[in-house]
């Protein structure tokens, strides 16, 4: 293409003198004409040498950062749970890869040991619980937009089921409905890199580390729970998620985490509106009916929480109005941790989520309890023997696959 200024059909008088001081003109300096091929000058510096030196420094700095982050307790293989990881598991449901699905909030996510479930039943469930979410929209979505006809185990943390929407899980549903090829590829690349680099962790980004410096410095501004939390979980490839081990072992972090729940004296939990309760009960009823019509089943779990948290939850909504009424409205069976001596004895170190070893014990307990109550769950021949609360003190690494070694 060639410039053809001389042939312009319209005369333009927008020309202004070139502004002084500008060593490179732009289209803003050339009104009403064909813009010429831009010329970009390269500063006369030894760029290949500068590049090589910069990359060397970068390599050393990243290596040092990786070492520092591993010293902080981060580990390679933690894939950093997020919407794409959830969408991947949700697609496995559509592909009919499993007939047991776990739905719920962070307690269901952290307190379920997929390895233990598989060791006991021969079935590895698909983990669809999401931290900070409300199980209801996910259950409804599963009922309305999937052919799933297996067992849905819904875990709730007392009143989360009555929330208005999917909460922090909203992005996951959107990602499942539309995930661009680019985003999907980036997730796979990120996962591959996460197996090599521990520092790739959303909770330890530069900006977040800077923000952690603020300890409610400004009067009247309390940093929200989600922002205040340090790292809480470690997530594997199929979203098997554990409480971050440092929460168990580091008193400072554990206390920080406990404080983040805001259970201090004087804090009153907000009440749940009757309309929200009615909506939740109606939607549950309809979702259960839809899943049952396909031959599926729904059961509920109420994972344990610390007595202090439990009291707070009861203040917000007594069990009879929350849990009991919900099960009645949905016509579903449920296992409340208060009703089972093993489950009740499990105490979350930071009040809300069980330690890794305790999650294995809790999973053992609820799978065995479900096996007694529904034909949808059956212990396989040769399943490992039952675990007991004292096993929470055992090294968690291989607890999932063996029986109790505790003396009690």
């Amino acid at each position, binding site marked *: 293409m060639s410039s053809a200024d001389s042939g312009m059909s319209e005369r333009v008088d927008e020309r202004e003198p070139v502004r002084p001081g500008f060593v490179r003109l732009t289209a803003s300096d050339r009104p009403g004409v064909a813009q010429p091929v831009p010329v970009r000058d*390269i500063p006369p510096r030894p760029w290949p040498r500068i590049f090589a030196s910069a990359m060397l420094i970068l390599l050393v700095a990243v290596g040092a950062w990786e070492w520092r982050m591993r010293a902080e307790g981060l580990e390679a293989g933690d894939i950093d749970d997020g919407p794409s990881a959830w969408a991947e598991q949700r697609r496995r449901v559509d592909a009919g890869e499993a007939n047991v699905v776990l739905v719920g909030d962070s307690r269901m996510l952290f307190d379920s040991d997929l390895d233990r479930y598989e060791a006991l039943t021969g079935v590895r469930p698909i983990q669809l619980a999401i931290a900070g979410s409300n199980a209801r929209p996910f259950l409804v979505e599963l009922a309305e937009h999937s052919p799933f006809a297996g067992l849905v185990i819904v875990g709730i943390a007392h009143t989360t089921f009555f929330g208005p929407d999917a909460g922090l899980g909203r992005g996951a549903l959107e990602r499942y409905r539309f995930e661009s090829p680019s985003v999907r590829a980036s997730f796979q690349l990120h996962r591959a890199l996460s197996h090599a680099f521990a520092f790739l962790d959303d909770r330890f980004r530069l900006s977040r580390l800077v923000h952690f410096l603020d300890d409610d410095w400004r009067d009247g501004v309390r940093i929200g729970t989600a922002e205040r939390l340090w790292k809480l979980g470690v997530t594997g490839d199929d979203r098997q998620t554990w409480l971050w081990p440092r929460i168990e072992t580091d008193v400072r972090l554990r206390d920080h985490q406990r404080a983040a729940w805001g259970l201090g004296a004087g804090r009153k939990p907000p009440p749940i509106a009757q309309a929200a309760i009615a909506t939740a009960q109606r939607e549950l009823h309809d979702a259960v009916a839809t899943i049952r019509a396909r031959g599926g089943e729904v059961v509920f779990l109420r994972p344990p929480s610390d007595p202090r948290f439990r009291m707070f939850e009861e203040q917000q909504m007594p069990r009879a109005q929350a849990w009991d009424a919900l099960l009645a409205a949905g016509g579903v069976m449920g296992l409340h941790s208060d009703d089972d001596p093993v489950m009740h004895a499990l105490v979350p170190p930071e009040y809300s989520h069980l330690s890794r070893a305790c999650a294995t014990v809790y999973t053992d307990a609820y799978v065995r309890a479900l096996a007694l109550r529904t034909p949808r769950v059956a212990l396989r021949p040769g399943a490992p023997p039952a675990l007991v609360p004292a096993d929470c003190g055992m090294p968690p690494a291989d607890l999932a696959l063996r029986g109790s070694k505790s003396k009690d």
Partner: protein
Amino acid sequence: MVFNSLTFVVFFTCVLALHSLPLPWTVRKINLLVASYLFYAAWNPPFVILLWISTVVDWWAAKKLVSVQGANARRAWMLLSVVANLGMLAYFKYGEFLMENFAALMAGLGVAWQPPQLDIVLPVGISFYTFATMSYTLDVYLRRAAPARNFLDYALFVTFFPHLVAGPILRPTELVPQFESPRRADANQLCFGLALMTIGLFQKVVLADGFLAGPVEKVYDGAKIPGVLDAWVATLAFGGQIFCDFAGYSTTAIGAAMCLGFAMPDNFRFPYAAIGFSDFWRRWHITLSAWLRDYLYIPLGGNRHGPARTYFALLATMLLGGLWHGASWTFVVWGGLHGSYLAGERFLRARYAHLRPSAAQAFALGVLTFLLVHVAWVFFRAHTFGGAWRVLAGMFAANAGAVPVLPAIEIVTTVIIVTGIVAAHAFMRARTLESVLATVPAPVLSGAWALLAFAIVIEQGSGNAFIYFQF
């Protein structure tokens, strides 16, 4: 595909490797074309069809503009191109907006009409590539340029991935000639291009997404009523965020093109050091403001038909420019404010033409420009007029029930970053990045480059789309 994604890192590495192979120039151009389609399809494959439609319509329209005789026939082919491109834009970008406003108008006339639920998905970058292709036919129509010699060069001009989805909005005369002869970056170009990409990604990943987006969201999207401090900090943060986001994209795009041996024009010239609004628009989103000037303001009469017509042309151009940014009346108000600023400045310049401001007065005018630009940003960022008034009222101490919103750390980081941006713009006001870098010792450049790259790596980023993708 966004530049700040791992997918792009792999994609760009492959493209660079392919482009450096000793293949015939035509084959390498075909590689670039296919790569560019992949770049676009990686977001949503079916929308590549729109890109093809825009490409083919303008190719044929331009050919016909050369071959047909008579002004009417030429005008008809030009209008075909404009209608096809603006039609796509109108449907995908403004379809629901038009329906909603039509329904509101009908309701005002007492006619109850419910618009159909269209659920239109906005194709990423449609505003950018439709403007780029329209400039091709319009330049040919205005006889500023001849059509491209072959379809491959033209298609590559439209689709070339560095500028495809968020600019800079290139004119055909800027890029098509570069495809006529073989291009490959030498070592200096390649390394400097990578340095530019690092600077751009630092702006986007670390400053815009990492540090500035948070306070903006808390005030603009939160439920709390902001006071003076929170409203101003959030608005300054947005000014910094949108600059770092968009200028970061442009710098990355210019760097990516340079790595492949191509030159793209500047899109930003340190705009927060502008003294006056005409100066601001010569520094902010230069390729869009120049496009609007050449294809809208000047055809509307420009400054050739007296003051009244000039003010009309200015306001109309800026109102439409505002609407270009999004299908919402808040964008129109943003454009209207800038149109008013420009008209007011023009009036004052004419009235006080003899005055030459002193350095102190120029500084004061620069501060005034900066503040008024940020007042306008409120309408750009707020999703509703209610939200805009809430923040504006906060900025001018008119919120009765204001409560503290932002944590101290976000106020501190915002003030540091925005001060740094403004200071850098003031220093660079009459300089280019290249002229400054030419004076910096090599070890300092290595250290600074490594520092920026390290910050990008440890900030990690989450692949957030660039703000301007939605436009």
